[in-house]
């Protein structure tokens, strides 16, 4: 039973309908048993009624929008970039987006799809609407802003064109920006991707891209439980829902996190970054320690790239509807207490999913770090089918060298979907100490 003080402190939020579901249930349960709080609620409701009634007489009942707009002062228009809205409108008029344009551009994709789904094509009447549907079914995103001199190279053909608003983005597409240009892409997920000037980005999937050079800024949705990966010539970045920037300039990769959580890895070395932290992968291949920076000013260039509202709407209408649902968790985090004992291996347990005939399990990346200091200890790859062959649904992963100085380990298990196969459900991890006994997770 919760205390009356706590209930009293949520009275107003309850009346205003601003209490979360679980808090509301607790609140209502308490009220059933507590006369004092019922009385308080009544009085509080009376107070609310009085306040609403008294103020209702003076409420602004009509919109003053048009009165305000007709009396606006003149604002001096000094475009911040080389392009202004006017230029964009002209650009759109020059390159009107017609259905035929889309059909033409997507012909190769349509052809491939038709070959694969021979059965489907038997009663498939091909027209522009279907092509449009096909486009929305196969594309992973849409261009929502493009300024200056840019290239959009489709992954399945040689024709290179400037990136245009509302272009569909398909797997394998490549984007180039030259000096003073920028592109913004909305990827399904949803993820906002801003590409700075003099950059090249390859879209591998809605949640996997490669930055060949230049700088990008990403806002990856927290809703999608799948992770997001950025590859660079120097190391990979794995993201668990966040807002961050990556640049690869002068053969050095820099990752700056605005909010959320990011993991940067190069070979077997890795660092976990949080809000305001920055890590560099040097040309030598080594990772620097995370340092605190003013992420907002570092990423100020990205703030100047704003999406075109029409394209944003088009993206939301045509692509965002197929946002993935019910996806498996992107990572599993475990805190395992070692009680200061020496740990020689980690033992992974799992339960086979009943009723699901899994023929192959996907591979995993296993990251171990000290919970107290965050210092990395080990990174191991677990091959996909090891799980299937392991006996009794447990698998021992030996440590590179026995861990003796940590009292608690932070272990992340990140599935690698590119290996194919399904994800394990309900994995449990225990530490193995030299006498082969295990230590329970805390």
């Amino acid at each position, binding site marked *: 039973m919760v205390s009356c003080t706590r209930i009293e402190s949520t009275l107003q939020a309850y009346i205003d309908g601003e209490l979360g579901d679980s808090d509301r249930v607790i609140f209502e349960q308490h009220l059933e048993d507590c006369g004092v709080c019922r009385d308080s609620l009544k009085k509080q409701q009376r107070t609310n009624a009085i306040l609403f009634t008294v103020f209702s007489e003076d409420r602004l009942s009509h919109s003053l929008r048009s009165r305000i707009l007709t009396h606006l002062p003149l*604002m001096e228009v000094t475009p911040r970039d080389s392009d202004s809205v006017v230029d964009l409108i002209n650009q759109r008029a020059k390159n009107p987006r017609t259905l035929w344009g889309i059909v033409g551009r997507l012909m190769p994709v349509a052809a491939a799809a038709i070959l694969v789904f021979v059965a489907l094509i038997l009663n498939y009447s091909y027209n522009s609407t279907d092509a449009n549907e096909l486009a929305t079914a196969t594309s992973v995103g849409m261009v929502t802003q493009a300024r200056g001199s840019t290239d959009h190279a489709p992954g399945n053909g040689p024709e290179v064109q400037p990136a245009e608003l509302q272009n569909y983005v398909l797997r394998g597409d490549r984007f180039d920006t030259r000096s003073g240009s920028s592109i913004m892409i909305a990827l399904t997920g949803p993820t906002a991707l801003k590409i700075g000037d003099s950059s090249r980005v390859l879209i591998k999937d809605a949640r996997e891209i490669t930055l060949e050079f230049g700088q990008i800024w990403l806002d990856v949705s927290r809703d999608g439980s799948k992770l997001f990966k950025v590859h660079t010539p120097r190391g990979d970045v794995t993201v668990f829902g966040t807002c961050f920037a990556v640049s690869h300039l002068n053969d050095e990769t820099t990752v700056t996190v605005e909010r959320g959580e990011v993991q940067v890895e190069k070979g077997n070395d890795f660092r976990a970054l949080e809000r305001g932290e920055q890590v560099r992968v040097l040309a030598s291949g080594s990772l620097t320690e995370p340092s605190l920076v003013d992420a907002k000013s570092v990423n100020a260039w990205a703030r100047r790239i704003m999406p075109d509202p029409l394209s944003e709407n088009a993206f939301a209408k045509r692509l965002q509807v197929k946002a993935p649902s019910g996806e498996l968790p992107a990572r599993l985090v475990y805190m395992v207490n070692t009680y200061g004992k020496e740990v020689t291996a980690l033992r992974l347990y799992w339960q086979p999913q009943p009723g699901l005939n899994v023929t192959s399990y996907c591979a995993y990346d296993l990251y171990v770090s000290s919970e107290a200091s965050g210092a990395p200890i080990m990174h191991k790859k677990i091959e996909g089918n090891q799980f299937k062959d392991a006996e009794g649904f447990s698998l021992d992963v030996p440590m590179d060298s026995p861990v003796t100085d940590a009292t608690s380990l932070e272990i992340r298990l990140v599935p690698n979907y590119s290996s194919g196969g399904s994800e394990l459900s309900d994995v449990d991890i225990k530490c193995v100490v030299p006498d082969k006994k295990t230590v329970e997770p805390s």
Partner: protein
Amino acid sequence: MQFEDAQLVYLCLEGDTQAYGRLVEHYQGAVYATAYYYVGRHGAAEDVMQDSFFEAYRHLRRLNDPSKFGPWLKEITCRTAANWLRKHAKRIAAETPLPYKRPVAIEDHRPGPENVAERSELYEGVHRAIEALPERYRLPIVLRYLQELSYEEISEFTGESKDEVRGILQYAVRKLRDSLIAQSDANEGGKNWFRALE
């Protein structure tokens, strides 16, 4: 919402007045309530509101972080209201400050002068009780009860977090409950009116 604000501000800076129209639409309730809080008793809420949006548009370029348009607009509204009060100080000094309300509309069908008197007594009581609150708690109360803004909308405008807004309203209404309900229970004459609300 924050993101959309920033987007609209950029469009405004490029000369799109319709984008400003959307900002006006979104914030007019909050700006009106703030203006009402300062100059409502002198019937100048709408004028101050219009001036505030005028000033905000004129100085839009000075807004450093476009996602903070709400709190910035709030500051402008407060300043505009303060300027209005300074400008009309003489006239205000000659006026009786209460009641707040604008003249009663002609189509007002409430029965009898007795009821009207009772209501204006209640009206003054509520405003007195709000004025007794610490400064920080007053504006959120007006935003909530005058324009029925949600916690989210209040937080967008005042710059306080949603949890802070929640705490502020909880504390403020609790205080008002103590003063108003006690007042109503003590005041036999006004009791019928409160009973009707139960």
